C-alpha cells in the first residue's frame, strides 16, 4: 500500500515537476537554493499527499503546497553571498521567431517579477500560470475583489519599473 502510494506520488510529481521548478526559480537566486527549495517542496507535498483525494487535479493541488512552502516554510540558508548565477539563463531558449528586443523585454520583465516581494510574486506567478481570479483568491486566502485590485496594482508597478 505504502509502496504504491509512493510510486503514485513520485510519478505524478515527475510529470508535473515543471510547476515546482518555476516556483523555485522565482523564489531563489541560485541553483543550490533552487535544489534546496525543490527538496523541501517535495517533502511537504509528500507529507500532504495522503490527504489528497483527487477531487482537484494533482497540479492544482500542488500550487498551494508549493507556494506555501516557498513563502512561509522555506528557510533561506545563509550560504555566503546570494548570487544571481542563473538569472542569465532563465529565458535564454533561443527562438528564431523573436528578435532580440523582445527577448530583452522578456528578460527584464522576468527580473522585475523576481524582485517583487514574496506575496506579490505569488500573485503574479498564478496569473502567469493563467489561473482564474477565483483560484488565485482561494490559494492566497484573500477575496476575489482584493486579488483583482492587487493584481492591477502590481501590473501598474511593473509597468513603471520597465517604462520609467
Amino acid at each position, binding site marked *: 500500500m505504502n509502496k504504491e502510494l509512493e510510486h503514485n506520488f513520485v510519478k505524478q510529481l515527475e510529470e508535473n*515537476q515543471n510547476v515546482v521548478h518555476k516556483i523555485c526559480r522565482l523564489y531563489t537566486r541560485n541553483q543550490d537554493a533552487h535544489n534546496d527549495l525543490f527538496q523541501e517542496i517535495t517533502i511537504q507535498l509528500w507529507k500532504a499527499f495522503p490527504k489528497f483525494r483527487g477531487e482537484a487535479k494533482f497540479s492544482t*493541488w500542488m500550487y498551494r503546497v508549493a507556494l*506555501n512552502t516557498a513563502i512561509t*516554510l522555506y*528557510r533561506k540558508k545563509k550560504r555566503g553571498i546570494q548570487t544571481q548565477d542563473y538569472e542569465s539563463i532563465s529565458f535564454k531558449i533561443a527562438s528564431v521567431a523573436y528578435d532580440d528586443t523582445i527577448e530583452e523585454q*522578456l528578460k527584464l520583465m522576468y527580473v522585475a517579477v523576481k524582485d517583487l516581494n514574496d506575496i506579490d510574486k505569488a500573485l503574479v506567478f498564478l496569473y502567469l500560470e493563467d489561473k482564474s481570479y477565483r483560484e488565485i483568491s482561494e490559494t492566497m486566502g484573500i477575496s476575489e475583489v482584493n486579488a483583482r485590485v492587487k493584481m492591477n496594482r502590481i501590473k501598474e508597478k511593473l509597468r513603471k519599473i520597465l517604462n520609467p
Partner: protein
Amino acid sequence: MDQLELLKKEWKNREQDFPVLSFDEIYKMLLKKSSSVIKWIFIISIIEIAFWIGLNFLIPESSKQINAEMGLDLSFIVFNIIHYCIFAFFIILFYKNYQAIQITDSVKDLMQKILKTRRTVRYFVYYNVGAAIVSMIAVNIYYYTHKEKLFEVLSVNFEDIGTNLTIDQFTTVFFGAQVVVGILLIGFIAFIYYLVYGLMLRRLKHNYVELKKMED
C-alpha cells in the same frame, strides 16, 4: 503588447530550461528530512515549554526548607496547583493550534495558524515570567515584613550569617541580591527571545503584513 502579457504568453509557450529530475531522483528526496520553519518552531516551542516546566523542579531543597520554616509551605502548594493547571491548559492549547496547521491551507490561513501557535507559546512565556516576578515580589514583601524571623531562620541554617552580619546589613545584602539577580534573569530571557523571534519569524511576519495590506 504589454510586457507582462508578453511574458504570460511566452510563459506557457516555451519551457524554461529546467533540470529534469528522474523518478529515482525524486524518490530519494522523500527520504530526506524537512527543515521547514514549522518544524523548527515546533522544536523551539517544545524546548521552551520543557525549560519553563523544568525550572520549577530546580528550586533547591534549602530554599524549600526556609520557606517551610517561614510558614509559606501551604501557600506554595496552592500556588503550584494553580500553576500546573495553567501549564496543562497551555500545553493543550499549543497542541491543538499546532495540529491545526495544514500545508494545504491558503497562504493566509497557514500564516495565521503558525502565528497563532507561536502566540500561544509567547503567552505561556509571558505567564511564566509574570508569575515568577509576582511570586518573587510577594515572597520578598512577606520576607521583608518578617525580616527578624527570616534572619533567625537563616542564622540557624547558615551559621556565617548570624555571626558575621547585623540584621540591617543582612537586610541590605539579602534584598539587594534578590533585585540584582531578578533584573539579570529577566534581561537574559528578553535577549534570548529577541534572538529567537527575530530569526525565526521576521520573514513570516513581513509576508503576513504584505498580505494583510491587500485587504485594507
